[in-house]
């Protein structure tokens, strides 16, 4: 085995959505690397920029309106500069994506088998028949019962859990190195969530994929991630190994999210209890974006965007109180 290759590399990644009325600064300087077989979990509220980041990696944000800057590489390919055709060749092949709502993420008027097979045909150039055979194997791989019959089924004929399994089967159809999961369990019942999560973890290990997992469910993050990044107003406000972050968050926002103590029973609990609302991203924040909601706010917080500070190796947070927080931990 060679040295682990970097699947994703982001440096000062910025994503803006420009329309006639306004410019929305969705992602404002994100840095991270993802190694092979590594699982990164991005935590954040709606509108924090986590899904946008994920889509940016695949070049899936609406092309006409999106302006990206900084550096973003997917399996060595420069995503910002790459042509649509080039990206299209990577998508589904090197990196795949699964979504929150399998009902709407699957085309309602095509059979499951067809939707899996067309990906295989596209990237591997095999016959449709061979692709269907593969599709059957994939359905079995994701543990869909009576897979053969399900090949001919339409999405609305499956239960939520089975749909998400089918979605995963599509994503895995070309054995990608990277799986991007955008809140894949949020829309499912609690019991089904666990099954899907277990399935994902098993597949990640069996197939040796790197995974970026976007969620606002802490339990999910704890279950599957190697590392966690907490995102707020388009920035990573904290990043670190899963255990450390869960145990002792450094950033007041992360602390707010996690509450005072962290324990295993958090699964299924939503991020709910911080007073106030996230900032309007139509204006690029020039100070700590969390300041208006922060219990520990100081004047310094309002003068500039805090730098990422790392009190210990592998951990970092954008807060001037990092040192104190680290000590308190």
């Amino acid at each position: 085995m060679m040295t682990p290759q970097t699947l994703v590399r982001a440096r000062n990644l910025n994503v803006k959505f420009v329309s006639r009325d306004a410019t929305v600064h969705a992602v404002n300087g994100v840095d991270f690397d993802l190694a092979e077989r590594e699982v990164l979990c991005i935590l954040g509220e709606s509108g924090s920029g986590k899904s946008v980041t994920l889509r940016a990696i695949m070049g899936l944000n609406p092309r006409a309106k999106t302006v990206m800057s900084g550096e973003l590489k997917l399996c060595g390919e420069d995503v910002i500069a790459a042509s649509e055709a080039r990206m299209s060749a990577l998508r589904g092949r090197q990196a795949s994506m699964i979504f929150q709502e399998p009902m709407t993420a699957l085309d309602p008027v095509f059979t499951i088998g067809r939707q899996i097979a067309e990906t295989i045909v596209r990237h591997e150039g095999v016959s449709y028949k061979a692709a269907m055979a593969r599709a059957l194997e994939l359905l079995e791989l994701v543990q869909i019962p009576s897979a053969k019959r399900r090949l001919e089924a339409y999405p609305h004929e499956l239960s939520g859990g089975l749909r998400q399994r089918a979605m995963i089967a599509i994503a895995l159809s070309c054995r990608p190195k990277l799986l991007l999961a955008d809140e894949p369990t949020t829309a499912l019942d609690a019991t089904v969530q666990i099954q899907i999560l277990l399935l994902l973890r098993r597949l990640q290990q069996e197939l040796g994929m790197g995974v970026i997992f976007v969620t606002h469910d802490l339990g999910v993050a704890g279950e599957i991630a190697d590392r966690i990044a907490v995102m707020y107003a388009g920035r990573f406000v904290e990043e670190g190994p899963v255990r450390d972050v869960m145990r002792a968050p450094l950033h007041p926002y992360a602390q707010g999210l996690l509450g005072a103590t962290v324990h295993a029973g958090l699964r299924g609990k939503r991020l709910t209890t911080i007073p106030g609302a996230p900032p309007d991203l139509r204006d690029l924040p020039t100070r700590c974006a969390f300041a208006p909601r922060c219990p520990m706010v100081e004047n310094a917080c309002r003068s500039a965007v805090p730098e990422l500070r790392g009190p210990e190796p592998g951990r970092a947070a954008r807060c001037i109180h990092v040192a104190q927080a680290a000590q308190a931990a």
Partner: protein
Amino acid sequence: MLKYILRRIAYAIPIALSVSVVCFMLVHIAPGDPIDAIVPPDTPKDVVEQVRKDYGLDKPLPIQYAVWLGHVLQGDLGRSIATRRPVAGDLILAARKTFVLALTAAMFGFAIGIFLGSLAAFFKGTWIDRLAVSFAVGGVSVPHYWLGMVMVIFFSVLMNVFPAMGAGPGDWQWDWQHIQYLILPALTLSCTPIGLLTRTVRGIVSEILNQDFVTTLRGKGLRNRTMMLHVVKNAAPTILAVMGLQLGYLMGGSILVETIFSWPGTGSMLNAAIFRRDIPVIQGATLVLAMFFVMLNLIVDIMQTMIDPRIVRK
């Protein structure tokens, strides 16, 4: 599926019957004695009484309807007041010509409308979109009979490239000698479907393009033409319904264009009948066109069922 189709057909029967009731009532909403609406005013008394008996006009309305329906089901739509010829025979000839016109206009309209609509949806927000939308709004806003007049002046009188009127010599045939007669009226008639289709297709396609599964498809790295296939299959049921309705509207709404172009179809037949107060012709033409529309809706429904797997289970 078959069960659904049968149920749909069963549902169409009461509709068709109700439509026939409305058509039947046309004679009765005409002011005065209904008998005056179906025989010429100078008909001798005894003949009038004979007709009154034949049509059961001396009986209560429901019985009259039953008698009338009996006649209709045997293909007897009564006689024209003006020509005394049976309405049915003339109507079939005319309906055939109108169908040729409506179908061609529909094809023009659908092709251009779908093209412009998709273009607008794919380039939403750009000048292409705005241009297509302006064209569409223009198409639905223009009084097409006025457009027809202008086209005749331009293409027939000044440039002399298309005939100004009529449907060509003798029976209709799909050869150039006849098709040249079709072009101007069909173009005129197609401006409404162009507008409507452009708007509908733009709406549907941009809605589909905004749906999550399109992101999934892009995320799978599909080529554009495969993506198109998905968009088309998703848009098809709705667009099919709109197209069906439009074809029906064109069949029933060609009266002005047929009048302008002296196209010998049901429209000009209706127009002439209205002025002669030839109620049997109005009634017959309305019945036939409305029944065509009912049939068309049925066919569209069934086709939708075949395309869209979601419908049957509902």
